[in-house]
């Protein structure tokens, strides 16, 4: 049989058994769409999270109090230690040769009030360098002034959302708000910046670190950011910081220094596993579609027993019959999976127009994989029915009998 005839024969079968064709088409397309959308979602979430982490910049080291014995996995995000990391430690770190700037961090929740309105807000105590390291900028006013780390000044920069809630349309610059039991002058309002690194930057108050320490009545730091001058020195500087702090802490290595790269790679690993898990779940829907194909083909074979008998009587060999059935499954799987792919691109494009924060793009391996999987499953699952059809004896098939092998 000529290939062009096989194609036209199958096309006739598919177009003249419309209901069956549509059911198969929908089943396969849904499988392909599921794989592509779920992996797009996974990848979108991944790039979103990685971007969040990236805000720090790869020249930044994070120093946490306490020695964490970690053998892979996420580094500790909170640390408790009998010996705190102090402002003095921060000053010593800032004097190391490879260090460009440091930003000590003290955080906590405090009530902020203005003209009778009270809001609870995340209060971050830090320095001017914090704005540079975190790439934060102000919409109005200015950022924290350059101060010695242990010198306080009753000024604050507030988040965009907080400014609206406390002041409404009124200007907040120069106004005094009460934070805890101290009054601070507002000198700047942050640009609308969304969430980053778990902090909602629209809803924070940033004050000089010394003021924060007295507000919370603590000596220690929550953590310390240190930015190195050149990326190549990251390892050396990291070592130098550990050595310095060990020396300062009476010979005990009780701090943890992590680089963004280390953090990113473990986060990336987790997200990769998530994406693969999600893709695996989607692949199950492909398997279901495959089984549906098998059932449909089985039904087709039994409905078309007489036709198969006739084809064989008219000169079709067993292999021609098998080819016809396999190609039928292959053709519908190819057409359906391609249209499924097209559909998932349409859906992600619409989603991308509506959500600007998260971008969905099915990864190339999911696109190729879903189509290959659909076609392979279709062929695999129709092999059995095709084999059954090709084995039919023409005499019995013409009488409409299905089984019973002849000798």
């Amino acid at each position, binding site marked *: *049989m*000529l290939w062009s005839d096989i194609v036209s024969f199958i096309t006739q079968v598919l177009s003249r*058994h419309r209901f069956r064709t549509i059911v198969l088409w929908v089943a396969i397309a849904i499988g392909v769409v599921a794989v592509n959308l779920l992996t797009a979602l996974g990848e979108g979430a991944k790039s979103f999270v990685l971007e969040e982490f990236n805000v720090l910049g790869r020249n930044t080291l994070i120093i946490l109090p306490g020695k964490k014995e970690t053998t892979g996995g996420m580094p500790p995000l909170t640390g408790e230690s009998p010996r705190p990391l102090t402002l003095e430690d921060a000053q010593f770190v800032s004097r190391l040769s490879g260090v460009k700037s440091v930003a000590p961090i003290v955080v906590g929740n405090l009530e902020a009030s203005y003209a009778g309105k009270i809001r609870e807000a995340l209060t971050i105590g830090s320095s001017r360098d914090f704005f540079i390291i975190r790439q934060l900028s102000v919409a109005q006013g200015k950022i924290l002034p350059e101060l010695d780390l242990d010198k306080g000044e009753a000024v604050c920069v507030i988040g965009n959302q907080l400014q609206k809630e406390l002041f409404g349309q009124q200007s907040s610059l120069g106004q005094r708000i009460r934070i805890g039991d101290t009054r601070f002058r507002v000198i700047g309002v942050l640009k609308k910046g969304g969430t980053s690194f778990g902090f909602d930057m629209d809803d924070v108050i940033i004050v000089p670190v010394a003021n924060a320490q007295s507000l919370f009545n603590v000596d220690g730091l929550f953590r310390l950011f240190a930015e190195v001058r050149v990326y190549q020195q990251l390892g050396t500087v990291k070592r130098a910081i550990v050595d310095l702090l060990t020396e300062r802490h009476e010979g005990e290595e009780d701090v943890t220094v992590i680089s963004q790269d280390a953090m990113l790679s473990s986060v990336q690993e987790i997200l990769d596993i998530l994406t693969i898990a999600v893709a695996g779940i989607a692949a199950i829907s492909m398997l279901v579609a495959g089984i549906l194909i098998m059932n449909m083909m089985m039904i087709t074979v039994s409905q078309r027993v007489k036709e198969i008998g006739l084809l064989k009587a*008219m000169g079709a060999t067993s292999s021609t019959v098998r080819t016809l059935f396999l190609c039928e499954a292959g053709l519908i799987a190819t057409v359906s999976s391609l249209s499924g792919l097209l559909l998932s691109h349409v859906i992600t494009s619409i989603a991308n127009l509506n959500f600007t924060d998260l971008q969905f793009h099915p990864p190339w391996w999911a696109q190729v994989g879903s189509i290959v999987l659909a076609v392979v499953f279709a062929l695999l699952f129709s092999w059995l029915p095709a084999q059954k059809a090709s084995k039919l*004896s023409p*005499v019995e098939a013409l009488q409409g009998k299905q089984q019973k092998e002849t000798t």
Partner: protein
Amino acid sequence: MIELKHLEKKFHIGDQVVHALDDVSLRIEQGEYIAVMGPSGSGKSTLMNILGLLDRANSGDYLLDGINASALGEAERTRLRSDKIGFVFQSYHLVPRLTARENVELPMMLSGIPVKQRKKTVDDVLDKLNLMDRAHHSPNQLSGGQRQRVAIGRAIVMKPSILLADEPTGNLDSKSGEEVTKLLESLNDEGITLMIVTHDPTLGARARRQLNMLDGRIV
């Protein structure tokens, strides 16, 4: 020319062995017109299936135009069948989703004959069977007689040397039956070997040679 030598065919039904063909020897010259008659279960259909290469005998030889068909493999038998044998069935066995024309074309398509060559041959056959105006109808839009004419068209489109017809008029009224019989006889006049299996004595009597079968033997 067909030659059968001591053909045997047995079926096992339960623990009973049925001799569908019992030492059948037969010689049929090219262009003969033969009717095979006999009661149900006498082995008519089995003989027909073996002659049509749809089934194999348990023992004995079958020579078709000098080729020993009993010795061939399945693929070669399939090729021989499509080259030399045309089938006409009682219940037509047209493919319902294909048009009359496509049904006639089917054997040529299965044999891999190029489209251009097919068109001419199919046109000739449809013209000869007076089916040109029905070419694009599907089988369920055709009358019984027309359906059987389409089936005959399909049987002769590969220009076989033998036409095997199993109760070709069994599902037809007497008028269409007469038309179909005349058509088959005119094909026989053109040189094709015609073999009709039938219960109908009047149809059987028209053949130039009658084979009566009983319990797997020609009597």
